[in-house]
């Protein structure tokens, strides 16, 4: 031991050898003291108290125990030197008292002055160092000194060995007892934490409780707990224990900042011997008074939810394996608490979200149990049917909003939805007032965890929609009717114009005044064009109103083609064109609307002849695989650009606005052809190269659509 001689208390000289009786008295005193001791410190005091005194003639008695973490010998109890304070530490490699710890044997040093490597300040005297074994482990040293050299004999050594032996047994017992208590405390703390987690305490209360329990078990001065905010990539301190004057709660740290930020990144616990000397310390913790720090990440299934830290203001306190073990008991608890709170909040938000969705939905929504009784409904349902939720809950939905006429259908929907099929339909339902409401109904089974628990019905109010549709249909019908009657009214005087001009032409010829025949011919031609236009408009309006009917019959194609070519012949020849017909001999019969097929072919051929001069117009007919008939009208005329082709089949559009005046025609022929062919289950396509002619292909099913 290091000590300064002047500070030592002067002692009276005693007999060289004490009697046997005082030794037995000392041992008895020591045993009694140990028996009454609680904890290892008391045991050490009892040992020291038993050995020190006039009777045995020892000048200094001390017990030093080994600190597991540092290996230091720590003075626990001593007598004979007031300056030797409890807690005094002797580092490994220093002092005579280390020797028993190295070899497990008693060391007697008759003249300490000869042991020069130790204590050079000491003048004279002798010393005995006795190992203390507890549970077969060297736990400390009993140090006894005399101011005189050669002061100890065998009797002394025996009694000191016996004292150390008793001390070891008692310390072992005390330690077992302490471990037992610590385990009991741990169990209690864990049980309390579990109870907190199971209870409906708010997160901050639970975390504060977890932290305080951990701090108590670890026996440290400070603790902190932070939650990880993944969105901000920051840790926020939500619970703190005894840190400085100002609570650190609310402090935020970036990933990587300080000890918590460090473990948040590494996902590994971290032990820091002295925070002030640690290079990673955070500026936010510059003024703290702690030294050793132990931090651990809080993880759930490998993802970070927070961090927990413990610190101690005692510079001698170092964290070790036992501390980590305790930390590992509490960290998962805190992590679970945080995760539970997060899941609970998320579930609550989700629930709120869906509730808002239903509450504010303009569609009437009602949920039913398996017996068709209402479980809940939303405000839109209340508005649509005039019932409040309180009036409908528990009642059979069909009783409330169906009539005799719609009940069967409604029950059918419900059954189908209960059979796990979504069902949709348009129907009427009854308002509380008895008025009927047009609705679109959607029934869907509600399946939770694979089990059907009921169904949900959605009603979309389509009263206005249906009204608008009826009005639109009415308007469309009126328009078609109007067009039909206008067309009829126009046709009658036109027939007269055409007929009388023909009559006059004939009479002019008979009367020998052919010069007026030309003018009459123009009147007649204009009349016929006007008539064709009216007929086309009527056709289109019928198609658009869905009123164009198809009268299919089976007839041979060859005579039809003959009739078409005969009709279109004069028109083709007018511009010096030649008409070539190909392939009609092998085409057989077709089942189609003869009048419309003829109209389509005439349209395509007259179109071709309009835009071709001194060229060839070819009509070819062939069967395509037996079930389709293909009519191709090819010309060597002016052709079209892709842009012109795009507008080709629209009503009232000729490829060029100027073409109508140059080439004549109603501009409706191709639009009608396209719609007729579609009505008959076929189609018409065009290919063209500007300047090189166009090819129209009309395809129809041979056996009708």
């Amino acid at each position: 031991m290091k000590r300064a001689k002047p500070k030592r208390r002067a002692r009276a000289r005693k007999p060289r050898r004490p009697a046997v009786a005082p030794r037995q008295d000392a041992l008895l005193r020591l045993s009694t003291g140990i028996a009454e001791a609680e904890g290892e410190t008391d045991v050490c005091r009892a040992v020291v108290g038993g050995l020190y005194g006039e009777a045995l003639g020892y000048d200094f008695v001390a017990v030093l125990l080994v600190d597991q973490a540092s290996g230091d010998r720590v003075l626990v109890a001593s007598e004979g030197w007031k300056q030797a304070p409890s807690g005094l530490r002797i580092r490994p490699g220093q002092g005579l008292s280390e020797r028993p710890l190295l070899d497990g044997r008693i060391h007697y040093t008759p003249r300490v002055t000869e042991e020069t490597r130790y204590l050079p300040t000491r003048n004279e005297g002798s010393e005995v160092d006795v190992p203390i074994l507890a549970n077969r482990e060297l736990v400390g040293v009993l140090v006894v000194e005399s101011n005189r050299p050669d002061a100890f004999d065998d009797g002394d050594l025996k009694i000191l060995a016996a004292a150390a032996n008793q001390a070891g047994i008692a310390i072992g017992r005390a330690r077992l007892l302490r471990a037992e208590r610590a385990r009991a405390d741990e169990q209690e703390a864990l049980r309390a934490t579990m109870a907190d987690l199971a209870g409906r305490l708010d997160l901050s209360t639970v975390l504060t409780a977890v932290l305080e329990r951990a701090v108590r078990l670890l026996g440290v001065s400070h603790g902190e707990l932070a939650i990880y905010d993944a969105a901000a990539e920051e840790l926020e301190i939500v619970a703190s224990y005894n840190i400085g004057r100002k609570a650190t709660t609310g402090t935020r740290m970036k990933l990587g900042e300080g000890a918590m930020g460090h473990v948040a990144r590494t996902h590994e616990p971290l032990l820091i011997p002295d925070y002030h000397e640690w290079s990673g310390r955070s500026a936010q913790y510059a003024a703290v008074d702690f030294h050793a720090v132990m931090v651990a990440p809080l993880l759930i299934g490998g993802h970070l939810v927070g961090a927990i830290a413990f610190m101690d203001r005692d510079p001698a306190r170092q964290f070790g394996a036992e501390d980590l073990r305790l930390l590992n008991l509490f960290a998962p608890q805190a992590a679970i608490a945080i995760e539970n709170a997060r899941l609970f909040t998320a579930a609550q938000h989700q629930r709120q979200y869906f509730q808002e969705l239903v509450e504010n939905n303009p569609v009437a929504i009602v949920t039913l149990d398996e017996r068709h009784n209402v479980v809940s409904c939303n405000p839109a349902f209340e508005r649509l049917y005039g019932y409040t939720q309180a009036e409908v809950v528990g009642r059979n939905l069909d009783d409330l909003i169906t009539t005799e006429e719609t009940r069967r259908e409604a029950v059918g929907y419900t059954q189908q939805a209960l059979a796990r099929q979504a069902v949709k339909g348009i129907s009427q339902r009854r308002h509380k007032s008895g008025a009927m409401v047009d609705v679109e109904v959607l029934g869907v089974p509600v399946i939770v965890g694979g089990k059907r628990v009921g169904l949900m019905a959605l009603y979309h109010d389509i009263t206005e929609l249906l009204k608008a549709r009826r009005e639109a249909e009415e308007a469309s019908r009126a328009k078609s009717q109007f067009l039909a009657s206008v067309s009829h009214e126009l046709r009658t005087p036109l027939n007269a114009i055409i007929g009388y001009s023909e009559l006059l032409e004939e009479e002019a010829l008979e009367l020998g005044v052919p010069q007026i025949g030309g003018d009459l011919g123009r009147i007649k031609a204009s009349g016929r064009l006007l008539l064709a236009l009216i007929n086309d408009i009527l056709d289109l309006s019928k198609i658009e109103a869905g009123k164009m009917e198809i009268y299919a019959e089976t007839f041979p194609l060859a005579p039809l083609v003959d009739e078409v070519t005969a009709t279109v012949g004069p028109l083709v020849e007018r511009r010096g064109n030649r008409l070539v017909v190909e392939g009609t001999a092998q085409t057989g019969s077709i089942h189609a609307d003869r009048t419309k097929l003829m109209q389509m072919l005439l349209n395509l051929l007259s179109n071709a002849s309009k835009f071709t001069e001194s060229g060839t117009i070819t009509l070819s007919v062939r069967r395509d695989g037996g079930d389709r008939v293909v009519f191709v009208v090819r010309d060597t005329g002016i052709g079209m650009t892709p842009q012109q082709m795009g507008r080709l089949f629209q009503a009232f559009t000729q490829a060029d606005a100027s073409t109508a005046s140059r080439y004549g025609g109603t501009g409706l022929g191709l639009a009608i052809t396209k719609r007729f062919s579609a009505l008959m289950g076929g189609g018409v396509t065009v290919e063209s190269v500007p300047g090189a002619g166009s090819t129209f292909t009309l395809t129809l099913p041979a056996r009708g659509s």
Partner: protein
Amino acid sequence: MPRILLIEDNEMNRDMLSRRLQRKGFEVDMAVDGRIGVEMGRAGKYDLILMDMGLPGVDGWEATRQLRAAPETATVPIIALTAHAMAGDRDKALEAGCNDYDTKPIELDRLLGKMAALLPAAPQ
């Protein structure tokens, strides 16, 4: 000279067609509606009847059925005249008992061809 009965309610159509037919050598009588047409047809021993289908009151189809039902006119050729070439009109007319069918506006040559096919011997 073949005797033709033209049943047509529109005055101008009636006038026009009758004059053109007369010029071609037909003797043409005229009726202004279906009821009168049927009466005249049964009484007049006509070689051919031209029947407008869109007549007021008794329409062309009904008048045709009545003429076909009467023994005097059961076999007299009837050509239906309809306003617009409506698909189905032809079937409907043939079904009612007409022998043929033509559309307005009348193209005289076409009509004459159809008439010639139904008359026992060509006029002139």
